[in-house]
Each structure stands twice: as structure tokens, then as C-alpha cells.
């Protein structure tokens, strides 16, 4: 993996980075101050390739810059001569991370995290741990490979060494071996179901088939010929038989006609036919007479119907007249009932109107009661508010009185304390005077001692005659220097002076404190005195204002203009004077320091306010009672209104029912009048004329008399009798015509039985004879065609037909006898030929059953199919043998190709399986994998040892097992005992060796990233290490060195300078001049530090 360009956004301290190109750069220094963001560039590489952090196993989202919604990393790199681009995007919210790997040369893409991670590991042949240990050496963790255990080291390097590949090849070999074994087993099972030698078996079966097929063909030919012979013989025999049958039929017909019975039947039928014709002529005359009678009756009935007095109209008129009495009585009764109901409804309507008129007065009564309840309720609330207000006012007066008493008491206590302090002041002044005197005495003592000591010091080296250092006069002799002052005495004097000074300070302090206390007490007393005076003034003012309290007036005033309902008592207001007296007495008690505490004041308060509270409670009770009375009145009024509404509804329903009855009566009357109007005119004539208006119909009906109805009924009965006479005539004519039709039918039946049936029997006998004649013409075409029967079955026609048939039958018998003799002879000859041919074939087969007998030429079985059964059986057996042989040949032939292919595939598969068996063993962990690991480890350490020597100035090298060896002494050193610089160089040597070794084998590592580590090197070692790096880079390799040392810039080819400000980190390539300046500044700074 050889990075080409890198860009990223929202990663740690970077808002954006790049794109930065690493193409055509070999040795790159990523430089900058500590904390500038250099290592973040390597983090971006790890995130791009593996989606992981280099410095921990924590969630890579921890790398997202503060406040950035996303983190994207975009890396283009070259691997195995292909250019690849990998992009990953991480989100701070719950959106899933995206990853895309793209081959920029082929366009192939891999999407999603897991497939991309998998593709990267497979491509680089190393997982992230190996990458972090071998390719990207993170800050502080570059010695992972050096310090790893053997096991860990093997795991880290197995991808680079190709051991992973060998293990994968072995897995593939095992998988293919198992799959191959299964297929070989299936193939063996399949081959076992086939013939051992399918080709040979096919040839043998073909020979058998040919033999059987030849025999079958010969027998088929024989059977076909013999069946033809059987058929022709059977036709000859049948022809002779048919001629015999026809001759027998002709002879039988002649015998039947010769017996004479048929002619007598025809004669009897002729006689009966004459009688039947005479009877039919009589019947026809009678039918004409009856028809005339029927037509006359029907014409009379039609005339009556046209005149409106038909049978239907008369029946309807009869029904109308019969129910006219009943309808008249019912109408009269309903009219009487309707009149009575109308009177009752009028009275009910008057009663309901009167009840509705009372409702406004009732409503006013209830409203007045509700107003009264509201007024009392409002007064009740006013009284309660007055009680509350009075309670507060009285409590304020009592509290003010208690406060005034308390202030007076505190004032007295302050006065007592001030007197006590004033009494102590003279004593304190005396103590100050005593202390001042003691201090003056001590001061003199100290001054005396100090003078003595000064004199002793000054005179210590003087002699008589010397000038006095004080007065400059000569010292007289003899002179004795003053004795030095005792040190203890001077100290004692100073101590006494200090004690006296302290005592004076204490006395003055106490006096000042007493004076300050006295001033405080005086000020406090004045303040308390003003407060007591104010309290007393307030109490006096409150008591004086009490007569003007509105609350007291409210409680004492009676309730005016209230009409109390019956049973409710008016409460009695309080007496204001009593409350004032109680309040004055209470204030006096408190001022006298009695009942001044809280509970006592509350008790006094309760006592004074008890009448007011009682009055308020009584008023609430009265208000509740009035309210209940108003509510009860409202409920009763509403109940009465609901009853009235129900009664009005009932009245309306009855009025509607009355109207319905009235309409029904009018309808009934109209229907009766309509029925009367529909009566025939002659029947309606005796009744009075119907009125024109509907209102008069009822009266018309009521005025109708029984005599009028009876007269109309008589007219109706006369018309009905006339119609009945015409109806009887019509029925009699119809009955006569029916009887004549039955007579004609009986005559026809008798003709069928006694005339037509015998004639048909005679014709049938003649037709039988004609049929025999037509059969005979089949074998003797010269015979005449018999005549056909006539259309009519009359005795004359039948007799003529019979005579012609008898003549033809006689002639046909003679001619047909000659034809029969010729046919019999031909049949005999054919039978004999068939018998001879069959005998010859059976003799040739030679395989016929022993009990087989050939039928006689006259035997009927000779011509049956069963006679040839031995031949068909033999042919069947031969055919079956041929089919079986061909099937066996085909089956064997079918197996040839598959068996050959299976044998070939099994041979190839077994060879491969044997090979895979050995390959799996050889590639096992303890075998080739171990050999490969050992070999490439040696190669790695060889290169690393040489590089380590160059890096360390010939100091160190590597031996087996990654042992670090001091070259001069040959002594192995534990890697953990190396210094920081040595450890870095040892790791750098390993990393460079890995890059070189990897580039020799399958892939190309292409890049190495070193994060710090140079800081642990001294100046000379650093220079040597950078020199080695310069030498090792080249070609397409990229070695990137991260360092905070500016001196590194001198050794690298390109410098990516990283710096950070308030807006975040940024990176840029430095020009050659900038690199030179950087190195120069660093050197100058180093010189300055030396001075």
C-alpha cells in the first residue's frame, strides 16, 4: 500500500485536510510543534484503511471533531500496480457509517463496511494489529513487534510471511478433498449399477436378435397366405349357404300363399266397410241440426250483455242491493258517536286553556321566593366578611396593646443595665491610674540600667587624663572604670516595664468597653421608649375609632325588606356596645401586664367575638332554609308544567282520531253511492235519484226506505230469470254436438279394427313373399322385380296385388335350384386346397406341439382363426425373443459411453484425491507453515541485523529469536533492558527490514510511517538514523517521519509542516527555502541556548 493522496474532514483538530499528494515523494517529514496535529494524519490513514484508531480500541467516532456532524476520510493509494481509492464517512448521529473501495483502473467497487474491511485485509495480507506493528509505528508504541512474545510475533507476521496464504491453501485442499471424495463415492455407486462390459454384451445380443427376427418374418408370410386361403374358402361356403337360404324362403312363401286363408279375410273386410259408410251419413245430418240450436242461444245472450243486463252485471247489482240495508244502519250509528265525541273534546279543550292561564302567576311566586333566598345569602356573606374584618381589627388592637406593654418592660430592663455600668466606671478609672504609675516606675528602672551599662561600655578603656567621650573633658585620676551592669538586672527591669505597660493597656481597654456599652444602652433605651410611645398611641387611636368600624355596624344592623317564608326565624343582630366594652376591658388587662402572651390574647379574642360568630352562623342556617324552600317551589312548578303538557298532547291525539273517524264515515258513504250509481238503469229506476254533492250522500242513504230497495230487487230477479233460459238452450245444443262426435269416433275405431287391420295382415303376407323374391334376384338376376303395394288399403287393391305375387313366386323356385348346385361344388374344392397347404407348413416348422391335429376338409373348424394358432404362437415366441435381444443390445449400447466416462472420471478423481491427501499433510501447521515461518524470520532478522548495525554505529545486531546482540561482545541483551533510543533504533531496523522483505515477496509494503521516537536519540545517533533512512528510501517506497524536532527537516526530502491555531490544525508542504530557514532557525536557537 503506497499512499498517493490523502484528504479528510472533521477529524480531531482538523476542520479540513488536503487533499495532500504523497506521489513522487520518498522520505517525508511531517513536522510541527507538539500538539499541532501531526499524529492525526496517521490516524486518518488508519481510519481510511481499517476504520480504526491507532491509539486505542475505542470507537473510531471518538475521533470526530467537536461540533462536526460527520468525519470523512478519503485515501488514494497504489497496490500491486493498481490504483485504489477508499472513502469512509462517519456520522455523530445514528446514521450508519459508509465505506467504499474502488479500483480506479478497472472501475470495480466494493461497498459497505464489512466487505471493504475484508477486502483491505485480504489485499494487504495483514490485519490492523499487524499493520500497526509493522507499517505504522504509533507514538510510544513502536516497539510492539520487538517486545512481543514468540506467539504474538508469529501472529503479527504470518500475513506478511505468507503463512496465512499457505493455511488458506490447505483449507482449500481439505475442502476440495472432501468434495472430491463425495463425488467419487457417487460415481462408484453409479458405476456399480452398470454392466461390467457393455460393448461385448451389445454385440452378442445383436446376433440373437437377428436370428429371431428372420424366423418371425417367415412365419408371418405363411400366416398371411393361409389366412387368405381361409378367407376365400369361407366366402365360397357362405355363398352356397346363402343361395340355399334364399331358395328355402321362396319355397316357404309359396306354401303360405297356397293355403287360401288370405283371400277370405279380404272378402270379409269388404262387407264390413259397406255398413260403416251408411252409419256415417246419418251422423252428419244430426250434427247440422244441433249446430243451428247453439247459434240461436248464444246470439240472445250476447244481446243481453250489450244491453247492460248481462249475468256479471246482474250478480254485482244483487250484491249491492243485499248490503244496502247494512250500510245504511252502520252509517247512522257512526254519525251518532261522532256527535257525542265532538262535545267531549270541546269540554277538555276549555279545561286545558284554563290551566295554562294560571302558569304566569305561579312563576311569579317562585321567582319572588328565589329573590328572597338570594338576598339573604348576600347578607349572610356580608356578615361573614364583617366577622372576619372585626376579628382582624380586634386582633390588631390587642397585639398593639401587648407590644406597648412589652416595650415598657424592655425599657425598664435597659435602664437597670445602664445604672449597673455607670456604677462600675469609677473603679475602672482608678485601675488606670494605678497602672500608669506602675509604668512610670518601671520606665525609670529601665533608663537607670541602660545609663549604667552605657557608662560601663564608654569607660571600659578610658584612663585618667583621657577626654570624656560625653563631655570631652579630661578624666581626673585616679580613675576606676565603672562596673558593668548585671545583664539579669537589665532584663528584669525591661520585663517589669513591659508588664506594667500591658496592665495599663488592659485597664484602658476595659474602661473604653464600659463606656461604649453605656452609650449603646442609652441609645437602645431611647429607641425602645419611642416604640412604646407609638404603641400606646396606636392602641388609644384604635379604641377611639371603634365606633366608626363598618364591620361592627353591619353586624349590629337588622335585615330590612325581607318576606321570611313560613317556618323560618329571622336571626337577631349583635349589640355593638357590648363588643366595645369587652375590647376596652381587654386592653386594660394587657396594659396591666396581664393576659399579655399569645394564647391568652387568643382566648380573649374568642370571648369578644363569640356573639358575632353566633349571629353569622344563625344567618347561614336561615339562608339555607330559604334556599331549600325556593328550590322546592321551583321543582313543584316544573312538575305541574310537565303534567299539563302531557294532557295537551293526549287531547291532540284524541282530536286527530276524531278527524280520522269523520273521514272514514264520508268514505264509506261515497263507496255506497258509487255502487248504487253502477246498478243497471232498470234496477236503479225504483230508487231515489243520487244527490250531486258529497255532503248530501249521507242524508240520501239515511232517507232510503225498505220498499224502494225491494222494488229494485224485483226488477233484478226478472232480468236474471230471462238470462237463465237462454243459458239452458245453449248448454243442451252443446251436449248434443258432443254426443254426435263420440258416435263418429266409434265408427272410425271399428273401421280400423274390422277392415284396415285384416287388410294390413294380408298385405304383410304378400310383402314377405315379395321379399323372398328380391333375395332370390341377388343370386338369380334374371328373375322379375315384384310390384309394390298400392297407397290405399282397400279390399279391391289388396286382392289385385296378391294375385301378381303368387305368379312370381312359382317361377323363382325353379330357377334358384339350379344355381345352388353349382355353388356347392366350388366350396368343396377350396376346403381341400386349404387342408393340404396347412399340413405342409406345420411339417416345415417341426416345432409344433405333438398333439396338434389338422382338421378334416369338411370340418367347420378348418376355417376358424384358431386353426392357425400354432403358427401365430410360434411367430409370437420368435418375435419376443427378437425384441428381448434388441432391448438388451440397446441397454448395453446405452451404457457404453457413460461407463467409459465414469471410469475415466474416477481414475482422474482418484489421482487428484491421492495428491490432495499428501498436500494437506505437507501444508499442516507443524510442517511447511513452520518451515516457512522459520525461513522468513531468519531472512527478516538478517536484514534487520544489518540495518540495526548501521543505525547504531556498529553497536548492535539481531540474532535468532529476535535477540538483540552487542556486536563487539557477542552478548545477548534483553530487549527490555535497551534504552529508549536503542529500543527505537531496534524497532526502526525491524520495520525497515519488513518493508524490504515484503517488497521482495508477494506484495509491496510500499510505505512506513514513524510517529516520533527520534526525540529519544542523541545528536549523533539521530544523524546516523536519518542517514540510514535516506539510504533505505527510494524507488516507489514512502517513508514518513513524524517529529517535533526541526533538525529532522534537514535529513528528509520533503517537509509537511503542521501548525495549529484557534481555528484548528492545518498542513502545507514547505519549499526548499522554507526548509532551509527552519533548519537555520533551529540551529540558531540551539546556539542561543548554549550561551
Amino acid at each position: 500500500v503506497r499512499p498517493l493522496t490523502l484528504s479528510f474532514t472533521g477529524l480531531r483538530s482538523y476542520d479540513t485536510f488536503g487533499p495532500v499528494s504523497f506521489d513522487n515523494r520518498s522520505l517525508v517529514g511531517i513536522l510541527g510543534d507538539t500538539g499541532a496535529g501531526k499524529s492525526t494524519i496517521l490516524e486518518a490513514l488508519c481510519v481510511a484503511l481499517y476504520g480504526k484508531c491507532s491509539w486505542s480500541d475505542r470507537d473510531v467516532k471518538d475521533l470526530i471533531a467537536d461540533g462536526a456532524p460527520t468525519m470523512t476520510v478519503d485515501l488514494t493509494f497504489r497496490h500491486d500496480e493498481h490504483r485504489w481509492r477508499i472513502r469512509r464517512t462517519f456520522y455523530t448521529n445514528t446514521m450508519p457509517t459508509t465505506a467504499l473501495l474502488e479500483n480506479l483502473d478497472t472501475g470495480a467497487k466494493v461497498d459497505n463496511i464489512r466487505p471493504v474491511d475484508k477486502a483491505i485485509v485480504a489485499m494487504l495480507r495483514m490485519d490492523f494489529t499487524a499493520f500497526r506493528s509493522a507499517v505504522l509505528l504509533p507514538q510510544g508504541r513502536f516497539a510492539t513487534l520487538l517486545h512481543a512474545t514468540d506467539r504474538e510475533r508469529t501472529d503479527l507476521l504470518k500475513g506478511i510471511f505468507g503463512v496465512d496464504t499457505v493455511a488458506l491453501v490447505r483449507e482449500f485442499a481439505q475442502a476440495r478433498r472432501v468434495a472430491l471424495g463425495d463425488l467419487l463415492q457417487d460415481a462408484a455407486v453409479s458405476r456399480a449399477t452398470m454392466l461390467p462390459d457393455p460393448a461385448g454384451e451389445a454385440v452378442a445380443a445383436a446376433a440373437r436378435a437377428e436370428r429371431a427376427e428372420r424366423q418371425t418374418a417367415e412365419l408371418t408370410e405363411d400366416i398371411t397366405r393361409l389366412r387368405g386361403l381361409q378367407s376365400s374358402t369361407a366366402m365360397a361356403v357362405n355363398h352356397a349357404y346363402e343361395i340355399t337360404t334364399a331358395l328355402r324362403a321362396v319355397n316357404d312363401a309359396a306354401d303360405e300363399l297356397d293355403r287360401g286363408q288370405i283371400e277370405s279375410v279380404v272378402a270379409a273386410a269388404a262387407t264390413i266397410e259397406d255398413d260403416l259408410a251408411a252409419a256415417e251419413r246419418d251422423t252428419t245430418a244430426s250434427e247440422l241440426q244441433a249446430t243451428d240450436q247453439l247459434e240461436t242461444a248464444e246470439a240472445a245472450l250476447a244481446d243481453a250483455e250489450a244491453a247492460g243486463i248481462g249475468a256479471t252485471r246482474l250478480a254485482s247489482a244483487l250484491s249491492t242491493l243485499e248490503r244496502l240495508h247494512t250500510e245504511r244502519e252502520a252509517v247512522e250509528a257512526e254519525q251518532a258517536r261522532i256527535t257525542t265525541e265532538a262535545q267531549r273534546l270541546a269540554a277538555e279543550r276549555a279545561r286545558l286553556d284554563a290551566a295554562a292561564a294560571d302558569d304566569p302567576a305561579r312563576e311569579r311566586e317562585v321567582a319572588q321566593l328565589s329573590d328572597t333566598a338570594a338576598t339573604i345569602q348576600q347578607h349572610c356573606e356580608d356578615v361573614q366578611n364583617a366577622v372576619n374584618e372585626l376579628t382582624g381589627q380586634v386582633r390588631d388592637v390587642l397585639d398593639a396593646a401587648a407590644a406597648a406593654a412589652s416595650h415598657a418592660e424592655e425599657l425598664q430592663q435597659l435602664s437597670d443595665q445602664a445604672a449597673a455600668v455607670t456604677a462600675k466606671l469609677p473603679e475602672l478609672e482608678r485601675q488606670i491610674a494605678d497602672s500608669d504609675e506602675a509604668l512610670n516606675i518601671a520606665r525609670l528602672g529601665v533608663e537607670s540600667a541602660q545609663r549604667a551599662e552605657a557608662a560601663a561600655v564608654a569607660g571600659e578603656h578610658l584612663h585618667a587624663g583621657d577626654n570624656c567621650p560625653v563631655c570631652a573633658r579630661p578624666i581626673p585620676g585616679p580613675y576606676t572604670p565603672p562596673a558593668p551592669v548585671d545583664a539579669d538586672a537589665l532584663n528584669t527591669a525591661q520585663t517589669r516595664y513591659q508588664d506594667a505597660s500591658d496592665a495599663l493597656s488592659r485597664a484602658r481597654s476595659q474602661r473604653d468597653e464600659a463606656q461604649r456599652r453605656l452609650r449603646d444602652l442609652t441609645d437602645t433605651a431611647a429607641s425602645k421608649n419611642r416604640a412604646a410611645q407609638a404603641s400606646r398611641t396606636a392602641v388609644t387611636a384604635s379604641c377611639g375609632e371603634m365606633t366608626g368600624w363598618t364591620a361592627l355596624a353591619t353586624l349590629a344592623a337588622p335585615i330590612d325588606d325581607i318576606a321570611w317564608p313560613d317556618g323560618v326565624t329571622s336571626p337577631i343582630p349583635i349589640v355593638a356596645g357590648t363588643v366595645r366594652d369587652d375590647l376596652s376591658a381587654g386592653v386594660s388587662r394587657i396594659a396591666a401586664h396581664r393576659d399579655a402572651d399569645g394564647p391568652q390574647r387568643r382566648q380573649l379574642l374568642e370571648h369578644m367575638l363569640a356573639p358575632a360568630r353566633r349571629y353569622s352562623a344563625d344567618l347561614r342556617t336561615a339562608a339555607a332554609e330559604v334556599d331549600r324552600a325556593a328550590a322546592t317551589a321551583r321543582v313543584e312548578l316544573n312538575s305541574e308544567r310537565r303534567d299539563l303538557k302531557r294532557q295537551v298532547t293526549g287531547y291532540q291525539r284524541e282530536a286527530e282520531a276524531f278527524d280520522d273517524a269523520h273521514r272514514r264515515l264520508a268514505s264509506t258513504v261515497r263507496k255506497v253511492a258509487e255502487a248504487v250509481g253502477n246498478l243497471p238503469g232498470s234496477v236503479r229506476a225504483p230508487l231515489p235519484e243520487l244527490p250531486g254533492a258529497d255532503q248530501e250522500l249521507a242524508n240520501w242513504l239515511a232517507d232510503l226506505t225498505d220498499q224502494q230497495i225491494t222494488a229494485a230487487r224485483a226488477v233484478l230477479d226478472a232480468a236474471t230469470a230471462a238470462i237463465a233460459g237462454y243459458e239452458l238452450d245453449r248448454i243442451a245444443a252443446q251436449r248434443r254436438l258432443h254426443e254426435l262426435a263420440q258416435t263418429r269416433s266409434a265408427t272410425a275405431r271399428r273401421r280400423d279394427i274390422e277392415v284396415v287391420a285384416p287388410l294390413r295382415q294380408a298385405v304383410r303376407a304378400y310383402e314377405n313373399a315379395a321379399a323372398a323374391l328380391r333375395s332370390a334376384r341377388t343370386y338369380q338376376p334374371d328373375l322379375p322385380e315384384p310390384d309394390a303395394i298400392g297407397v290405399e288399403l282397400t279390399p279391391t287393391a289388396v286382392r289385385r296385388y296378391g294375385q301378381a305375387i303368387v305368379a312370381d313366386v312359382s317361377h323363382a323356385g325353379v330357377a334358384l335350384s339350379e344355381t345352388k348346385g353349382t355353388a356347392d361344388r366350388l366350396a368343396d374344392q377350396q376346403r381341400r386346397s386349404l387342408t393340404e397347404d396347412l399340413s405342409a407348413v406345420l411339417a416345415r416348422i417341426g416345432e409344433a406341439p405333438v398333439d396338434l391335429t389338422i382338421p378334416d376338409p369338411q370340418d367347420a373348424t378348418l376355417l376358424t382363426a384358431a386353426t392357425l394358432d400354432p403358427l401365430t404362437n410360434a411367430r409370437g415366441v420368435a418375435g419376443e425373443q427378437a425384441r428381448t435381444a434388441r432391448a438388451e443390445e440397446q441397454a448395453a449400447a446405452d451404457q457404453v459411453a457413460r461407463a467409459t466416462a465414469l471410469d475415466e472420471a474416477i481414475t482422474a478423481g482418484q489421482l487428484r484425491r491421492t495428491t490432495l491427501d499428501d498436500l494437506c499433510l505437507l501444508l499442516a501447521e507443524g510442517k511447511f507453515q513452520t518451515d516457512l515461518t522459520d525461513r522468513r524470520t531468519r531472512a527478516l532478522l538478517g536484514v534487520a541485523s544489518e540495518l540495526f548495525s548501521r543505525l547504531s554505529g556498529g553497536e548492535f545486531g539481531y540474532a535468532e529469536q529476535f535477540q538483540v546482540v552487542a556486536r563487539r561482545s557477542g552478548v545477548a541483551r534483553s530487549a527490555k533492558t535497551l534504552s529508549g533510543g536503542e529500543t527505537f533504533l531496534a524497532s526502526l531496523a525491524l520495520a525497515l527490514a519488513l518493508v524490504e522483505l515484503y517488497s521482495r515477496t508477494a506484495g509491496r509494503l510500499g510505505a512506513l510511517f514513524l510517529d516520533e521516537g527520534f526525540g529519544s536519540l542523541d545528536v549523533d545517533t539521530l544523524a546516523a538514523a536519518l542517514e540510514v533512512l535516506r539510504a533505505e528510501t527510494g524507488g516507489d517506497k514512502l517513508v514518513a517521519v513524524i517529529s517535533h524536532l526541526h533538525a529532522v527537516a534537514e535529513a528528509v526530502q520533503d517537509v509537511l509542516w503542521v501548525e495549529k491555531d484557534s481555528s484548528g490544525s492545518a498542513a502545507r508542504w514547505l519549499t526548499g527555502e522554507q526548509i532551509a530557514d527552519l533548519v537555520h532557525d533551529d540551529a540558531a536557537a540551539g546556539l542561543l541556548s548554549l550561551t
Partner: protein
Amino acid sequence: LREITGTLEQIGAHADRIGSAIVKVIVDTATPSPHLAEQVTALLPHAEVVRVEERCAATRIQLLDRTADGAEEPELPELFRDYLARVGTRGAGAEHVLASFGELLAEASIADTVHDCATLPEEDMLTAVLAGDPVPNRTRERLLVTSLASETRPPERAAPRRQRSRPRSVPPTEMVDPSAASSAEVTR
């Protein structure tokens, strides 16, 4: 600073010449000496000894260095061929084993797991025969028994069996060359 190398005897012989110089001493010994620093100090009483290193013949460890042919690390097929020449096979032909290794190694460059591994031509042939299908000539030509059946036939390389988007880590030129395998010194 002077560096002095030699046995204790040799160092002691030069003690006068060393005098009071500042020295780093490397002592050649036959066996490990526990109090070497004291012995050297005693031998060089006037010198300022800053460091004493022991170069013990008994514990001297052989350093590793680049081999002569280290510039080219052999590929896996070559290493496997060498390994096979040393250990031999159990019964299969060495050429067949090498050829199979080469085929599966080529497969490993394009398949990541066993499930992705392509079938061998012998499997394809058996599968086709069992299904009653014809065996393609391409399959037949790749059979182990065919590819190495005759030495007169030109060697065939294991061609990639299917195209993948990912390039091959092991290019085709690095596949097993059967002709090379047949010329190797292989023991059974």
C-alpha cells in the same frame, strides 16, 4: 578515551602503558566471569575505567546478517518445492502435489474463504459425468492426469479460472511451472 580489548592477561601486560588514561575495556573470556569489573580495576589501578564489557566465547551468540542471495526472497511455490525435496511425499507424485499447490495458491489469491474456492477440474468432470453432461475440452485439458501425463507435451500454466475485479496478489507468472517441477530434485 581509549578502548582496550583483550584477555585479562593481555590487559594486565599493558597496564603500565595505559597509566591513568580514561578507558573502555572489552575483555575476551572463555567462560562467564562474575567479578570481571573488579578484576579489571585491580589490573589497571591508575586508569579511569568507565565501562567493562565481557566478550565470552562460551556465551557468544552468532549474529545474523544478510545472506548472499538475500536480495531475492524465493516465492512460496519455490519454497514449497525446496521443502518437498527435503521431506518427500507419502505416495502421491511430487509433480502432482506441486501442481495442485500451484492451482490452489492461485485460487487463494482471488478467493477469501473456502466457500469462494473454485472446484477442481476433476470435480467438474465427475459432476458433469454424473449429471450425464458432456465434459468440456477445457476441463479435460486441466486434469491432473492429463496435464502431467506426458513429458513430451508442452508444460501448461494454471490459468485463472474466473475473472475477478481484484488483481491477483500472485501474478500468473508466479504459478507452478510443471516443467520446473519435473526437473527438481524430489525424493519420495
